């Protein structure tokens, strides 16, 4: 009885509690956004009647998104083809970035000299805006696949390097030493001790490289692509269809959320099922300064 007393008194307080709960706030947010949007349109159209075209209504955007989802589009490729093309580029770029970054990160973690050799340049590449890579790649490699892929590699590599280096530094040296002392051959010790301890960091590296590589890819495609997600949003922009730009932007958000929340969370749970306690580290291993900085521009 005592344990349920906070809930029991009457029905009315539980209703107000439901209204006050974070969930109701969360549900209110889209409604408020919609309201603000409609009010803005109302206000703008009364002040400047000619601005009707510029601010799309929510219905226009919803209609556009519905057309896109059903594959009925004015753009050269429908949304599924477009995102698939971009995903292929992202995958190729990420694979290269993982290999290159993994090797450099491993070397940097193992040797202080190598670390000193590369460190400043990694930081410099990390702080470079995506826009610079995108414009440079579009000019240097022309339109096509190479430019965007190089841009993904350049944005992804520093994150992989930093994560792998962190992982090597956190490797359980005592475990490794013990394995060696008990006569376990080096390859087996690396396979069973070092690599499992590196996994969470590699996974985090992949996740960051994915999120940031995606942003870099989109910018690169805007300037140096002939197809793909970035190119398509630029297509709507050039066509001066505001509802197309906003609708595509919403598709981007959905796409990113899908990968972040569903795919990576699932994967990480699956990957690290064998280590019951390390789930927390798998989700978010040692966020360093650079990692917590979401890169936009």
């Amino acid at each position: 009885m005592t344990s349920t007393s906070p809930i029991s008194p009457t029905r009315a307080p539980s209703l107000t509690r439901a209204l006050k709960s974070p969930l109701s706030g969360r549900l209110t947010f889209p409604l408020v956004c919609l309201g603000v949007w409609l009010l803005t349109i109302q206000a703008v159209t009364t002040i400047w009647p000619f601005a009707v075209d510029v601010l799309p209504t929510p219905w226009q955007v919803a209609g556009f998104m519905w057309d896109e989802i059903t594959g009925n589009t004015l753009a050269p490729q429908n949304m599924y083809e477009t995102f698939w093309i971009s995903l292929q580029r992202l995958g190729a770029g990420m694979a290269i970035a993982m290999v290159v970054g993994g090797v450099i990160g491993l070397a940097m973690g193992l040797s202080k000299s190598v670390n000193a050799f590369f460190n400043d340049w990694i930081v410099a590449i990390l702080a470079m805006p995506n826009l610079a890579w995108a414009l440079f790649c579009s000019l240097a490699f022309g339109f096509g696949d190479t430019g965007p892929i190089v841009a993904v590699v350049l944005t992804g590599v520093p994150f992989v390097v930093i994560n792998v280096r962190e992982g090597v530094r956190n490797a359980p040296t005592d475990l490794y030493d013990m394995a060696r002392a008990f006569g376990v051959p080096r390859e087996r010790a690396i396979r069973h001790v070092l690599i499992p301890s590196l996994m969470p960091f590699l996974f985090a590296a992949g996740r960051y490289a994915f999120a940031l590589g995606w942003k870099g890819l989109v910018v690169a495609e805007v300037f140096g692509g002939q197809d793909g997600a970035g190119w398509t949003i630029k297509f709507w922009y050039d066509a001066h269809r505001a509802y197309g730009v906003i609708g595509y932007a919403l598709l981007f958000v959905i796409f990113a959320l899908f990968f972040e929340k569903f795919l990576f969370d699932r994967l990480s749970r699956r990957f690290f099922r064998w280590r019951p306690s390390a789930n927390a580290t798998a989700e978010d291993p040692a966020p360093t300064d650079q990692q917590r900085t979401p890169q936009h521009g």
Partner: protein
Amino acid sequence: MSTAVAPTTSPPRRASQAELARKAQRRDRIKAWGWRLAGYLFFLSLWEFSSGRLMDETLLPGPTAVFATFGELWQSGKVPGAFATTLTRIGIGFLLAFVVGVLVGMLMQNRWLSGFFKDAVTIGVTTPGLIWALITAIIFGNREAGPLLAIVLTTFAVITVNVSEGIKSLPKDLIDMAKSFGVGVLKRNRHIVIPHLAPFIFTGVRFGFSIAWKVTVLTEVFSSSSGIGFEMRTATQLFRLPEFLTWILAFYILALFLEKVVLEAIERRFFGWRTTLKA
């Protein structure tokens, strides 16, 4: 500093050991610096070498070419004006973003409002700056409000995340005590909440700034007729890679300087009085 004291206070053998350790440390540091310099030399010469040999010189101008172009641009007198325009935009936009970010973070103390703003923050953190740049460009066209809105939308979330992180670690007992002693809301915020949040806010500012300048340049590329981004766009459209690289590198160096040197110096100064809590 202890070299003068060591011979008299400690036995000579330990002093020599400390000396040895210090020597080894110094050797390590010299070695690290040597490698660092080697890294600079290696990459700069790789860059210089590949321009003209591995890639066409017009496609990849080397560091010397970039340096020479910077001299030319400086002589033409375009540099300070463009820098000033962009920096003003960053300043105003970032100030707005800061106010919005801190306000939202503070409002998120309330449970309902924290639910309300949760998705806004997620969207703000995950959406690429490019999208905001395009949307604001198409809606506002050439007007000043476009870039400013884009900066606010991309940057506020980082500050909010840091502020709400700070709020999660607020000293609950102190606040409860203040409440039970009848201290008002304003005074409570002024004397407990804000001093506790300051380091978190500073972290947010540093991260936020690193995003803000990138987004500013990006929006200028799409919808502006002055500033670094505009100059970059002009250079790329005329296929002048040396000029483009010079603009972006010059501004990049300035932004890094502001981010790593100036902001950090301010932070150190600000928190000189507290020794343990440094964000």
